[in-house]
């Protein structure tokens, strides 16, 4: 009895919180000036010109309108005019007794694109045809081992952990199927992704890639649909606020999917 009451109260709270957050969604303003805008003079290059993004464009670091005879556009297998090298690392995966074997595999799809910078094995500056142009060295500025502002180890997701090699064991499951509620017992504790929305109103199901949770399900790399940064703090490009300071409710992101 007590348990049911508590659950009901929690639900009401969550629902109330969610609708509050929806009433005043504060959405980030876009990629310009965001952490993924590398158009400003970027430190960290050992090249003579002191920058590695020589043309100073935004999109080109990741996308290019023509492949120019380079094959990076195939590397990711997901298209998107990808213009950046991807990682060839094999990762130690997240494991858990509760998750059926085979539900989580090596990262695929657009998670590979994020890991192409964030696992720290490939340089942020490994894009376009810099080497051919002889302008700046490729593969010199790496996340977690480079120069400020990229040296921060926390930015390295799927990086080398001691003797474990590249590990995602400490990262929320990615390239993991979102349980299909109809066939999966709802007791597994998930909300219906076709009924739940992020702060900007987008359906959770629209941010799954082929039904899978990816990095881009929680984060908006273009900083267009993510919540506004907390005053003096970060928003980590999240699609739903995690804290009251970010304009939402405590753990609002997690509770969008997990019915806890």
């Amino acid at each position, binding site marked *: 009895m007590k348990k049911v009451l508590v659950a009901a109260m929690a639900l009401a709270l969550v629902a109330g919180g969610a609708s509050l957050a929806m009433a005043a969604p504060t959405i980030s303003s*876009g*990629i*310009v000036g965001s952490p993924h*805008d590398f*158009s400003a003079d970027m430190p960290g290059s050992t090249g003579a010109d002191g920058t590695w993004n020589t*043309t*100073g*464009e*935004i*999109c*080109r670091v990741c*996308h*290019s*309108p*023509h*492949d*120019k*005879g*380079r*094959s990076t*556009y*195939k590397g990711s297998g*997901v*298209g*998107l*005019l990808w213009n950046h090298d991807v990682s060839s690392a094999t990762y130690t995966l997240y494991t858990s007794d509760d998750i059926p074997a085979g539900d989580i595999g090596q990262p695929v799809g657009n998670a590979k694109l994020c890991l192409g910078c964030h696992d720290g094995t490939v340089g942020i500056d490994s894009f376009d045809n810099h080497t051919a142009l002889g302008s700046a060295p490729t593969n010199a500025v790496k996340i977690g081992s480079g120069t400020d502002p990229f040296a921060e180890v926390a930015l390295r997701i799927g990086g080398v952990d001691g003797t474990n090699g590249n590990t995602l064991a400490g990262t929320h499951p990615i390239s993991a199927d979102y349980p299909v509620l109809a066939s999966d017992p709802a007791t597994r504790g998930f909300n219906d992704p076709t009924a739940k929305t992020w702060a900007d109103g*987008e359906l959770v199901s629209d941010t799954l890639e*082929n039904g899978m949770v990816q990095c881009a399900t929680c984060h908006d790399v*273009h900083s*267009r649909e993510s919540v506004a940064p907390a005053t003096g703090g970060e928003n980590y490009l999240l699609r739903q606020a995690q804290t009251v300071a970010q304009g939402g409710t405590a753990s609002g992101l997690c509770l969008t999917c997990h019915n806890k």
Partner: protein
Amino acid sequence: MKIFVSLIVQFILALCVSGVALAGPPAVFGTGIVGSVHDFSRASWNPEALSYKGEICNVCHAPHDGGRKTYKAGLLWNRQLSSSTYIMYDKSWSPGITHAQDSQPTGNSKLCLSCHDGSLAIDAFGSYPGTGWRMWDENTNKVIPRFKDAAGSLDMHGTHPISVTYAAPGGGTAKGFKPATNTWPGGLTIADTLQNGKVQCSTCHDVHDTPGEVVPGTQLLRAGLTAKQGGASALCLTCHDK
């Protein structure tokens, strides 16, 4: 007297123009087709000695069809179109593509591809068969697209989607896109540069290098790509709301 002065001015102007063409300096973009990459009036394969050759427009357009069928491509087109099959950047390659799209390149894109896909001779136009001089011989970097599959189809997976509708399915502005009334720096709206509502090569590039419509210093682009050219990735951000 007045007339005399104006004649002198014209003479000087003419000198300047021919000087530019003679010296053959690197083309300055955004100043018109004369002297631009698509001005083939001085190309060795387009000698003035032959009738209709040594012109600019004739390489692509002819005022009369001359009994040839190429005009059927529209715009008095004076060249054969490529019969290549293309592997499109479409929703089978990227599920994110949601706008209506033609299954093969259409419209103006076909015109560009008649030279740029590298399959046909650039110097074949009008009634001239050409020498087999293709874009691959002219400049490999200007071949779009550059990859082929085993069957010989040209792979456009690495080229921005073309022959694709700008508006969302059912009309209106799709999420993630600016309204088609948004303007390029030259003053045209996005809608003005779409063909039947579709993004084609000519939506991003102006083949004629029309003054005021092309940002100088770019590859015939309607908006710049760098801060100096008017804003970092301004071209992409004219359409994409990112």
